[in-house]
């Protein structure tokens, strides 16, 4: 590039970016206009889960020995500036994701549960860690949790392997039979977070209309239920809990209908063409949702399993999935590491921005525990051993960063999930295939 962008007037840049034009304004606007009065007096923990598909190149991911996190390996290098907020784990596994597939890499990541092998509606997994957490952390927020992803376009016939597509595409499950659809369109995410446009009166009226529509759905479902058989009636019970949940969301939104009078024109409109711009926008929306305390639990699928996305922007014109079957070809492995590093770099920007965002007595990063990783280890073997996993942030929650935790023996990833749940006040005896809690994440606190 010959000229630098700083020579251009700011407006030009915004016009050129098109979709993301609203966000720099929002940054300034959200805390000022609305969120501060809703930001809890006592900072609360937030949990973020970021999923990447198809494992990694371990030779460029795994840090040298430990426990100090020394020089970061190539893939993790973009996280250098937040190293002290980082715990990298080696030797976590997902036993329940076997026999190894892309579907179970995705479905096991947050559930650590065994996916019933079916393509039909009798799919069965387990409640995911984020949803357990949302039950505690989401009680007082407008949205108990937010599920995001990056793939807008549907591909068909690429999640067969005998598994229904729900396993491969949905990270979050609010019950073993309820996958939660994720959203990849920034405008729609924005509207879920900040509500639809219009004047405060219009917004309030719209919310009231929603509430009465919801009452009607409940009544109508009751009528329908009388006509149905026993099995279908059980399914309808699930619908009723969805109704209660949406009802609660409307009540919370009504409480803040006067806030955030954001002009329609400043909302994100389309989807940025470039993958990185789209990902940044999605990360920014997560940060705004944390910052405004709209939700405290977010899951984000940065790419999906079996994705054939190419990454020419980092010198990888080859599609990700076939490349991941690298057969130890050094050239292919190197390209996989570039994709891994690119994903990490986008996450690193997010972590840096969270660190730069004040929250209570520290930064938003101090109050957020972010888990980043994959449900697959070595993609060329489709295995679920030695998963690439790291935790960022959470200093205020006791996370002791700057470390590499290496287990001698394969340790269930579920142990980490169980430990995180424990820390946010959800006490379970076990989770998935967990064998206990881990003690390596937090500072030892004198009792």
């Amino acid at each position: 590039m010959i000229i630098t962008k700083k020579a251009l007037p700011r407006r030009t840049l915004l016009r050129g970016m098109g979709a993301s034009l609203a966000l720099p304004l929002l940054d300034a606007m959200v805390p000022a206009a609305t969120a501060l009065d809703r930001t809890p007096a006592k900072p609360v923990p937030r949990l973020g889960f970021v999923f990447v598909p198809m494992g990694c190149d371990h030779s460029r991911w795994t840090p040298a020995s430990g426990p100090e996190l020394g020089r970061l390996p190539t893939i993790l290098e973009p996280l250098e500036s937040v190293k002290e907020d980082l715990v990298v784990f080696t030797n976590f596994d997902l036993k329940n994701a076997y026999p190894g597939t892309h579907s179970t890499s995705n479905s096991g990541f947050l559930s650590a549960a065994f996916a019933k092998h079916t393509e039909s509606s009798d799919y069965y997994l387990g409640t995911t860690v984020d949803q357990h957490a949302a039950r505690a952390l989401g009680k007082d927020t407008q949205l108990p949790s937010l599920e995001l992803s990056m793939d807008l376009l549907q591909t068909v016939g690429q999640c067969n392997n005998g598994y229904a597509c729900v396993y491969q595409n949905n990270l979050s499950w609010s019950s073993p039979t309820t996958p939660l659809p994720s959203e990849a369109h920034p405008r729609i995410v924005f509207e879920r977070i900040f509500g639809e446009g219009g004047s405060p009166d219009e917004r309030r009226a719209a919310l009231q209309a929603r509430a009465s529509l919801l009452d009607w759905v409940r009544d109508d479902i009751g009528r329908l239920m009388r006509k149905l058989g026993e099995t279908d009636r059980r399914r309808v019970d699930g619908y009723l809990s969805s109704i209660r949940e949406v009802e609660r969301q409307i009540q919370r939104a009504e409480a803040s209908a006067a806030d955030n009078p954001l002009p329609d024109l400043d909302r994100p409109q389309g989807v940025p063409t470039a993958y990185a711009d789209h990902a940044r926008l999605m990360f920014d929306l997560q940060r705004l949702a944390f910052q405004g305390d709209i939700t405290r639990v977010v899951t984000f699928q940065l790419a999906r399993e079996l994705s054939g996305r190419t990454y020419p922007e980092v010198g990888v014109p080859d599609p990700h999935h076939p490349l991941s079957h690298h057969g130890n070809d050094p050239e292919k492995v190197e390209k996989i590491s570039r994709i891994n590093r690119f994903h990490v770099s986008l996450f690193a920007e997010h972590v840096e921005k969270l660190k730069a965002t004040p929250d209570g007595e520290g930064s938003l990063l101090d109050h957020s525990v972010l888990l980043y990783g994959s449900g697959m280890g070595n993609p060329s073997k489709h295995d679920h051993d030695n998963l690439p996993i790291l935790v960022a942030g959470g200093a205020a929650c006791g996370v002791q960063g700057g470390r590499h935790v290496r287990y001698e023996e394969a340790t269930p990833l579920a142990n980490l999930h169980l430990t995180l749940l424990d820390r946010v006040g959800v006490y379970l005896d076990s989770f998935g295939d967990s064998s206990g809690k881990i003690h390596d994440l937090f500072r030892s606190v004198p009792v």
Partner: protein
Amino acid sequence: MFHPAVSKGGRVVHPTATGGHTGPAGAALLALLVAAAAGLAQDAAPGGAAAAARSLLDQYCVACHSGNAANAGLRLDTADLDRIERDPAIWEGVAHKLRTSTMPPTGLPAPPGPVRRAFLDRLEEALDSAAAARPDPGRTQGLRRLNRTEYRNAVRDLLAVDIDVETLLPHDESGHGFDNVNVGDLSPTLLDRYISAAQKIARLAVGSGASSPRTQILRVRADRTQERHLPGLPLGTRGGNAFAVTFPRSGEYEVRIWLTRNRNEEIEGLGRAHDLHLLLDRELVHSFTVRPPRDRLDHAEVDNHLHARLQVGAGPHELAVTFPKTESSLLETMRQPTQARFNMHRHPRTAPALFQVSVTGPFKVTGAGDTPARRRLFACRPASQADEDRCAEQVLSTLLRRAYRRPVSAEDLAGPLEFYRKGRADGSFDEGIERALASALVSPEFLFRTEAEPEGLEAGEAYRIGAFELASRLSFFLWSSIPDDELLDAAERGELAKPEGLERQARRMLGDPRASNLASNFAGQWLRLRSLESFSPNARLFPDFDDNLRQALRQETERFVDSVLREGRSALDLIRADYTFLNERLARHYRIPGVYGTRFRRVRLPEGSKRGGLLRHGSVLAVTSYPTRTSPVLRGTWILENLFGAPPPPPPPNVPALDNPVSAKLPMRERLAAHRDNPACASCHMTIDPVGFALENFDALGRWRDYEDGAAIDPTGGLPGSGPAAAGPDGLERSLLNRPELFAGTLTRKLLTFALGRGVESYDEPAIREILRAAEPGKYRFSDLIVGIVKSVPFRMRNTA
């Protein structure tokens, strides 16, 4: 009332619990198998014909399929040939393997053709007569929500409103290859979105009350080439785009136009001034001139003045932005004519391009206008204030009958009328209707297709579904939408209970434009055309791939499938045809001369053409390729699964990593040889890879090639059991056409999956054979297969839980 058509008389009477094998079915079965065995008698011991059937299994199958370690857990040593009805699933499996020649595996001794055929015929007859005595229609879920496509179509047919459903609802997950299978869920997110969607749609359809201005952004796909004339725009124009926009109210709208910028935020192609036209419903409403900037920084200002206020009536309009064409001479730059990507140094744009258009409004609202939506919705207008309640009831009962897809009762009307009254009290008659409409759109009776069970049946008993349930099955199968009034009337008159009445409706509906849904929605999933939208080949290897080509590829196949359906052609024409549909862009891609312009037209292909059937469609060839190269594995799997009907099993768990990396520089055939040498991979890839090799003459975009990297393409390959002669696409097509019942059967299974919204199971096979038998004399007409499904047991019946 919910089940008007189900009566005692309509119920299927089962043979009493005679235990099957002692009943008439069992006896017939034995006789058939004896006859079957007679066909094999030449090898058989004189001990008995039944023993001969047994000996076929013993000779060819039992070596692997016996004992506790039987392959695939299938024990044919103990399976009882005399008691087929006890476990039809096993025998349907055996029949399937024999039919597709996938067992015994390649390389092991197999029964001679005629012997295999005779055994198979008798086996199938036995299975069919068992099924006739005791039909098993399976069980489609009783509660299925409309998926995204169905929702969009239902709103279109209910309200004459086209919605951008992708921004209203989350996408659906597919199972068994279709997105209408796993639709029993209602997560909070989905419910939330259904409510928002209902409010937005009601507002758009009725247009009552105030409406604060909102902005819609209309984007042009980044890889759309705008160098030449584009479809849907007036002749004599270049580039730009036409957008379908629904305007919520009559009033003023601000339209703003952005031009494409390169990575330095400059607008390329501004060597001279360019005119730009804004068209509303193809009428010129505004003309702009874009002038070259004086210096680089001025690029920010170049398109600043491209905005206009338009007075627009409410409802759907076509808004277009385009450049009048100023020269007709061909460009003779270094750029290849259809190079899609631009590069400011090597291939800069020679003319500006449209980036996006925003529409903001309404301002100065003049009213709700006279829109197709209002005409469709308002079955009456109140003559006076006193007449309002009567008219509201009329509007709503017409609406609800369509939306709920059945006659409506006073109880059904009560809820929406309540919404109407509140809206009327708060505002106007229209406001009341708008709120009632929103309530109808979130009603579970609209959002869910329900199939309730009649009272008094035993568990697992087969019964005929109600007339209105059948009407919905029919319309959602053929149109992915709600029934029209005529179909509901026919259901009400009881005509669907008779096979002729059902067939009459099905044939009528296949003639309706809405049946193009089978080409776009069904075939879009069956053939995976949907994946084209996310197909982006490597720009360096395929520099001329752009959205224009992507859309042309999709259109060719959709139009082709539609033509086979509407012209009463044989489904086999899908495999081999002497015509296709092309426009200039696609014809150039295929190197077919003499096709000019952006309009699609039917093109008759000469003898020996490289084009014709589906296997030669660029769409199919592209979605089974990687962005950088062809994949014989993907293509082979695709054909085995979607055309031949013998999908290879999924890759084994824990795929062993290949010990030695395979060089990417080797020819494809040699690269893949490595994993056929590996025993863990070989068992399946011996079958899969040769199928794909036969299409290696088509590159990753479906262009014909004789060489790859200087080496001649070797298209040897073919389907299981087709022999070595089947090379290239000709050979592949021949072997598919030699066994037409296999392709027709596969298509029927796919159609049945889509029609029922559930996976096809072994107990559906007798119905499938019946459909095929009925369609065989007409050479498997596509429409006959569809009508056969509509009249079949699984379509018209259901089991209780």
